[in-house]
Each structure stands twice: as C-alpha cells, then as structure tokens.
C-alpha cells in the first residue's frame, strides 16, 4: 500500500482517483489514466476549429426515393407521396414534413454512390471512408476526430455510439480508447455506473489495487493490442466513474415536455441523448436507427418509421439551434446505400449502391442547398457524383478537421481523415 508520489496531479483530481492511488493502484492503470488526461503521446496537435458532430446512421439502407430524392409522377415513386419543402423547387417524400419545413437549414446530397451492396461492408465504408481490408482495421470518423482534435472533457468519453457496438470499426488502428462508448438503450443511459450499495469506496479501491497486482504477470506475458485495449478501457472506466458529469447520460433529468417533443422511441431518445452529451462536452455522437432494410412491404412500413426520423431530427435541429449549439455542431444523416427504384414482387425495394442521398446541417454547412442529382428514375447519379470518400471529407471539412493531412498506420501506410476525397464546395458555408 504505497502512496503515489509520482502523480502530483492525482491529488487535485477526483477523489476516486486519489483514493485509488492511495490504495496502491498499479502503475499500469495510473499511467494510462494520466496519459488520457494529459493527451496521449503521438496524438496530433488539436485542430483549432473542431466543434461537435452528431451522426444519425440509418442502418439497413434508407430508401432515397421515399425520403430525400422523390421522383413525382414516375412508377418508381410507388405509393409514397411527394411534398414541397421550404426551398422552392425541392421536394421530399411525404413523411418528411418537419424536415421539409426546415429545408432552408439543410444541405441535401442526392448523388452519393458506394462500391458495395452488402450491408456490413457498406456500413464500414461509410463510417471509415475506406473499403474493408483483411489486413487492417480503419478508424471510424469519430475516432479520427478525437485523434486529431482531442477530448473536450477530462472524464467523459469523447465519442459515444447510441446503438450496437459490434460491427463498429471503432478506433481501428488508432488508440483503443478513442473507440466509441456504446450505449445500448438511451432510455437507460450508461448502466452500471453506480457501485453496489454494500460496497464502500475504500473497498472498491482495495479491489482495484488487488486486481491490478494479481494481473501483472499476465499483462506482461501477453502484452499486445488486445490486452492493451482492455487496459485502456479499465483506465477509462475508472476515470468515468469519477466524473461529475455522468448525469449527461441520464435522460430522466430532461423535462418531460422536451422528451415527448423528440418522440417516445429509442431513436428519438437517442437524438435527445446526443444533444445532452454534446452539451456536456462529448465531441462525436453517433445514433443508430436500424430497420430500413425493407425488401418487403416497404409502403406499409416506411411511413411510420420515416415519421419518427422526421420528428426526431427536426426536433434535434431546433433544440440545438435554441441552445446556440447548431453553429458549433454538425448534424449528419446518412445510410450505407440506397434502395432500388424498382419495386420488387414483395412490394419492397432491394439494395441500391449506385445512387442515394444524405443530409447535412449545422456547423460549416450552407442551408437550403441540394448538391447533385440522380437520374429521372433515381437509379444513377445524373450530375456531380459524390463518392463515400468525398462525403466523409466534406464532413471533416465542415467539422473543422485536417482532412488534407496524412496520418500513418502502424504498418506505415498513409491515411487521410475522410479518405482523401474532395470536399463538396457547394454545401460548405
């Protein structure tokens, strides 16, 4: 049980860490903790102008024709109505009423295309701007953002994913602690942050110290990226438990009126959580909304789901604007690919990577703009085609990340944030 002379700043930090240190918490953990606080060796200098990003990811592939790129009067439009937006000459699918009313704040990209029609690869490519490779794991954009710009809050994570962490590329080849903290259910927030009632702070610290000590030989013998990832997560978890900002994860502190304005669905509550987190200093929040893979009965299923999306995203934009956060927060709506113009025999639409749409708003974005167009059937780009790398580079540019800079992976290969694409000038403010 040695005190920690080497860690002067642990006395000025949260009582937990100080206590843990007094209890003889191992050097390995404290090193990682200290490193996380002061910035990691090898991380890039902070980007001056980086704000926040909220990325709404529509998993399963959102139909572009039924939402942001309708084809009025064509057979391909099927049963989905077409409505006029606040921007003359621009129309949306019938469920997007609130976003249509706010179209002057949105930049719609209608000429995105991707290389793959398989979900997992498509999602990976959209999140990392690189096609999956067996030999390397690319970092997701949020991990790049933290790598380039650093965390804002000492204890809170910099990157949160509301949804399923499984197929997320996470930090890729960057430091594991840059990977997103998954929150399974926004309504429950981050679970298990409270000690069991029987357990005193002192005993908790004793436990940590004991675990650290007993585990030393193993950590030394099997040092490598997998064990290191867990070392970092343990350090991050301890820091998080010492945070006074954990309330940011607790939606029950939000007025009932605000909660109901977003909508009583997991996705809507996820959007609200994203706002709370950004407000508290989390840089990058991804909110997943699954279930768009409508191979069957699309016209029966899509309207209700699209209405949830419409209400939640519109409320998020209003809420951010009301709080003065929209100027510093980029909001992105994206999907892995689109859905076929052809309506199949099961009244559904199949995968369609050839063209699809995405939406940007907030920081760095010029509102009321449509970039690119699909052809008359919604099948292929007709003008100003945008690749996944171009789109990711645009996000990076709008958010204020150094998208032209080269970063090197452990294998020596160079990578750029956003995949080395060309930012779309027309949508940038």
């Amino acid at each position, binding site marked *: 049980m040695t005190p920690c002379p080497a860690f002067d700043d642990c006395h000025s930090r949260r009582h937990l860490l100080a206590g843990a240190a007094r209890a003889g918490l191992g050097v390995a953990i404290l090193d990682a903790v200290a490193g996380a606080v002061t910035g990691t060796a090898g991380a890039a200098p902070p980007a001056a102008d980086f704000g926040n990003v909220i990325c709404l990811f529509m998993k399963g592939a959102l139909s572009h024709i039924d939402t942001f790129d309708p084809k009025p009067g064509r057979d391909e439009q099927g049963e989905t109505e077409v409505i006029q937006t606040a921007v003359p000459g621009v129309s949306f699918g019938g469920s997007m009423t609130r976003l249509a009313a706010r179209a002057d704040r949105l930049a719609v990209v209608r000429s995105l295309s991707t290389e793959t029609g398989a979900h997992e690869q498509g999602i990976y490519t959209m999140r990392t701007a690189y096609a999956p490779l067996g030999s*390397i794991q690319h970092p997701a954009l949020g991990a790049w953002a933290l790598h380039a710009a650093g965390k804002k809050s000492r204890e809170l*994570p910099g990157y949160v994913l509301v949804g399923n962490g499984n197929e997320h590329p996470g930090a890729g080849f960057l430091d*594991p602690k840059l990977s997103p903290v998954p929150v399974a259910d926004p309504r429950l927030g981050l679970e298990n942050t409270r000690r069991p009632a029987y357990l005193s702070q002192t005993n908790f610290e004793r436990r940590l110290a004991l675990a650290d*000590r007993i585990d030393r030989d193993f950590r030394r013998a099997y040092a*490598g990226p997998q064990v290191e990832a867990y070392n970092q997560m343990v350090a*991050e*978890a301890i820091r998080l438990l010492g945070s006074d900002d954990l309330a940011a994860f607790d939606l029950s502190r939000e007025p009932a009126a605000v909660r109901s304005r977003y909508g009583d669905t997991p996705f809507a509550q996820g959007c609200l959580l994203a706002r709370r987190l950004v407000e508290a200093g989390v840089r990058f929040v991804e909110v997943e909304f699954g279930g768009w893979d409508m191979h069957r009965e699309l016209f029966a299923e899509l309207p209700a789901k699209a209405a949830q999306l419409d209400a939640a995203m519109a409320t998020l934009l209003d809420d951010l604007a009301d709080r003065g956060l929209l100027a510093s927060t980029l909001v992105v709506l994206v999907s892995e690919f689109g859905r076929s113009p052809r309506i199949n025999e099961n009244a559904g639409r*199949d*995968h369609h990577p050839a063209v699809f749409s995405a939406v940007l708003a907030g920081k760095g974005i010029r509102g009321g703009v449509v970039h690119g167009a699909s052809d008359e059937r919604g099948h292929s780009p007709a003008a100003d085609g945008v690749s996944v790398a171009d789109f990711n580079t645009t996000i990076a540019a709008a958010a204020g990340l150094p998208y032209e800079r080269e970063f090197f992976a452990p294998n020596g290969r160079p990578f750029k944030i956003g995949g080395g694409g060309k930012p779309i000038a027309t949508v940038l403010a």
Partner: protein
Amino acid sequence: MFVRPRPHTQRGRTAILTLAVVGILAGLAVGAGAAEKRVPARRRAAAAQGRLPPAVTDAPATTNLVVAPVDRSRRATVAAAAAAIDRLVEAGWQERGLEGSRALDDARYVRRMYLELGGRIPTHEETVTFFDDRAADKRAELVDRLLESPDYVSHLYNYWADILRLTERPQKNLYCEPYLDWVKRSIAANRPFDEWVREMLTADGKTWENPAVGFQLRDQGMPLPYVDNTVRVFLGTQIGCAQCHDHPFDSWTQHQFYELAAFTAGTQAGAGGKLPKEQRRQALTDPVVRSVRGLMAEARRSARDGKVDNQFLQFLQANGTIVSHHTAALALPHDYKYDDAKPLDVVAPRVLWGEVPSGAAGADGREHFAAWLTARDNRQFARTIANRLWKKVMGVGLVNPVDDFRAANPPSHPELLEHLTDLVLDLDFDLREYLRVLVSTATFARRAVPHDPTVDSPFAFTGPALKRMTAEQLWDSILTLVATDPEDYQRPRTEEFAAAAELDLTRGKVTLAQAQEAYQRFVAAFGPRQTRLQLVKEYGYHGQVLARASELPTPLPLGHFLRQFGQSDRESIEGGRTVATIPQILAMFNGSITHAMLERGSALHTEVMADDPRRAVDVIFLAILSHRPSAEDRQFAIQEITSAETPATGVGNVIWALLNTREFLFIQ
C-alpha cells in the same frame, strides 16, 4: 440493486465460516459474527434463503440430451493426424526462423480445453481432479470426455448460432424454435456435416414437422440474399455484390449470380404475406394454406373496430408456412446492363464451378444446388469448413476472413489448408473428430500468442492466437462459478413446441373460435413475453436469467451482458465480436451478474466455506483462474482477507479482483 441498508455494527474477527450462514454479500452488509446474531431471526432466515434461484443451485438433474460417444480406440490415429499437422506448421516456422511458444502446463491446458470444447472454465473440482490425475493419457481422456459432454453441445451450438444467425423469430410469422432445437440435437448426434447441410438446403414442411426448413426460412421471401448467404457460409465465397452489378474486385458476374440463384428460385413457404402471382397459384393448391388464408380473412372481417390482433394472424400464418419447392423461372433485373444477356431474360440454372453431380439428375433445382454444394469433389465445401474450424481453434484462419476466399486473398499456408481439407474428407465430414485432431496438436497445446493483424501477418501459429473469451464463454464461465446446476433450463424441444403450435387443419374445418383458443394456449406456453416471465420467475437473479447462453432466447436485448460482450445480433453472419468497450468494464465492476457468485448457495460460495483463509484463497484462485496462486499472490490475498473490515469483505474483494483481471477474460 444490492440494497441492504443495515448499519455496519461491529468489526468482528469472524471465521470465514460465517459465510456459510448468510452469503458473502449479506455478510458484508450486516457485518458478520456477533452482529449477525442481532439480526431478527425472520430476517436472517430470509437472508439465508439467498437470492439465487434454487433451480440452478440444487444437484444437477439428468439431462435428456444424448451425446454421441467418442471412439477411444481411435486415439493413436488422432495423435498421428495431429502430428502430421504439427509438421506442416513447424515447417512454416523454420522458413521464417521462428520457434514455438512454450508448451502449456496442466493449469493452462485444462482451462484452455474446457473453454475451447466446453465453452466454459472448469470448476474448482474439475481442475483439481485433472491436476491429481496421474494417468499418462489424461490429456487425451479430457479431450474425449469433453467432446461427448453437454458442454460441448452447448458451446458448438453457440458457434453455429453465430454463423447461421439463429433466432426464434427470423420474421414475426416464422416460428423457428424447432429449428434451433434441431441444430442443437444435430450437434449432439454428431451428424456428418455434408448430410446435415444437404438436409437444411432441401427440407420441406412446417418448422415443427421438419425443423431443418429453418435454414431456408432464415431469408424467407428474399431469394437472392438466401443464395448469397448460403454460398458465403458453406463455400466461403462472397458473390453478394454481384447481386447489383459485376463486382469490380472479384470474378463473379451478375449473370453468374442469377444463374446460381435460379436453382432455388422456386422455393416458397406458403401462407405468409403477399405472394408473387405464380407462387400464389401454387400455394393455394395446398388445402392447409387455403384454410389458413380463409381463417385470416375471417379474422380480419370479424375484428372489432377494424383492429385485428396481428400476433394471432402471425400464429395462423405460421401454421400455413410450409416450405416446398416448385419449378419457377428467374429473370434478370430490368436494369441489367451487360452485353451477355438482355434485361428480363430468363436465366438457366448453372453452378459457379464444376458440375452438378450426375447422381442428382432428374431431381429438382433445389436438389441440384444442394448436391453440387455438398459434393465431395466440390473441395471448396470441405476447405471452407476446414478453415473455419481451424480459425475457431487456433484463433486465425489460414484464409481470413473465413468467408472471403478469392484469388486476391490467398491462404497463408496453402499446403496446410489442402492437408486439412483432405482430413475433413477422410473423416467423411465428421467435424467433431476433426476438432479432436486439431485440439490434439502440439501447436494447440502451446501458450497463446498475441496477434496484431496490422503488423504481423501472416500469422505463423507458433501457438494459437490469444483470444478473449467469446461473450458466451464468459457468461457460461461466470455461471460455472454461480450455479451447481447450470444446465437446468433447456430450450424448448420440438415435440413440446409442436403440441402447442399445431392447428390441425387437415381434418375438417377449424372455426375461428377454435383457432383463437389454440392461439391462447400457444401464447401461454411459448409467447415471447410469457416465456420471459416464466424464465425470470424460475431462473431469475436481479432480472438476469441464469441459464447457459445457448438456451437463452435470441437475439438478446442490446443491453444484456452477453450483447455488451459482443454476442451477435443474429442479423449478420458471424456478427459476434470480442473487442473491448467501457460498458463491459462497468458491467464487470458493478453489474449484478458478476456478484451472483457472492450469494449464498453459489457454487463458489459453497467452496470457500473454509475456516482457513489460506485454503479459501487457493480455492478462489483455482475456481476463477484455474491455477493455484503464486506464493506472493497468496500472501497478498491472505493479507487482504485478514486485514479487511471483516473476513467476508476480504473474500468478496479477492473474488471480485480475480474476476476483474485481464487474465480471467483471455484464454492463455
């Protein structure tokens, strides 16, 4: 969660024996010893009852699962086959100037083998029994015993559940419990893999009449994804991108994809939803399907306020979901853009390589497809499973990802891969025997090697790659510390399910009222909500169902411990992951499941009822980490127990600490 707000009254110098009375958690909360006696008798009795469900803390019940016995007389053959593999692996080291990692000692060996073949850590008793066994062939005996245990069936079920995306309800109107039970029993019976796959690809009927239809139903109504997924799983080849266009990086064309899909395009499943014109005509010739559709129409008509109970309709649909195959034409998409054919051309079925075996001549397209895919001379079928199971055991495939064989992604050890393919064929697709060989190699009995795919590839197999336990291994290992009867709950058997789900439509007319009555009976027995409530009632601990991962309904909610640790969502093939996240650490720190073994009656708790801290420490180490502590760690842990507020507190701290080591999570 663990609310026991009683003041800590006295710092008792109590024997650990106290633990026997109230459990470590309760012991911590009430203080121990003298303090204990002041707790009113009634409350003490309640505490003594503990909170663990008796169903898992009683003596193990005999299981109805019959596992095929392992042939001990083949041990020499297995050893020779293992040695041949070692020679090929070691030849690779010599080329690169590498040496094997250290051979495993008994402690690491017994833990590795239980996890690899049984999906859980060994109990304290199993570990000590293995240590004390002086027989020369004790390692081979352990392998054989594990391969014929219910643990093996549970573990391999989890493995296949991840690959086959097993879920009770792939769509709301598809009742696939019988299929899940059938997969489990096929593993127990150790059916030859080729026969097993052929049956899945060609099965006809309702799920509870012929559960193997579940495989075809997984992608019901999506004939193109079905072919894509089937080829990916069994031939390790991704042709899915060619669904939309010719793949720029691979050799498969959209035309070839459609030609392959043409074999199975005529497979249908009856009453579910809207049907394409051609299929509707065929489906309606079936009297059961006609009755179901009639009942559904009647239910809609008679519904009050136009509100029809969708779950009742789904129940009816499930009764009319009868997989069958008919001849049907598959046409190219209307936007087909290549020169070798025109849009909407009907494509003739054709396989990707080789020929349809002549023995299948005369059979229908689906039979042709299955015969070709599983044929002995379609080496890619054997090669794919050989590589998959190699990855399961050694941690890294010879081809990675295991479902992406193509010219630009060659094997790291081509000769070894062909050797393993031959072995699978020589064993007539006896996969358990193949696993028996792999785990009998010297390569597998070496210490794990940390692996960084971005730096050191190809992996040289100087030992198996270091793996974090899968979510299921971790859950089942924790359960091993908690439950003396972890297998008490078994997922529903096909016969039970059939009895509840079957609406007999073959003998005369069933009225709407009769159908609704049958539906109510079904819901009471197998409705998702009712099932959950029943499970929590019998097996619940703080809302968690204490049953093996293989028996829990899937997919589990995203916040469940198993999902936090990366269990698949059952949507993507092999969607399970083992990457680190902060919520995992928080669950290990503070979650209820990692405290269950501190309750009275838990397997571990019963074991640490020693009055000697030294013995308690040894038992805790053996139970959690499968080895005795080093002299230094022992001293440290004993000191923790004797210097803590109470010995019970100290014991709780040591148990918690061991669970929260990396060593516990990883397989050395």
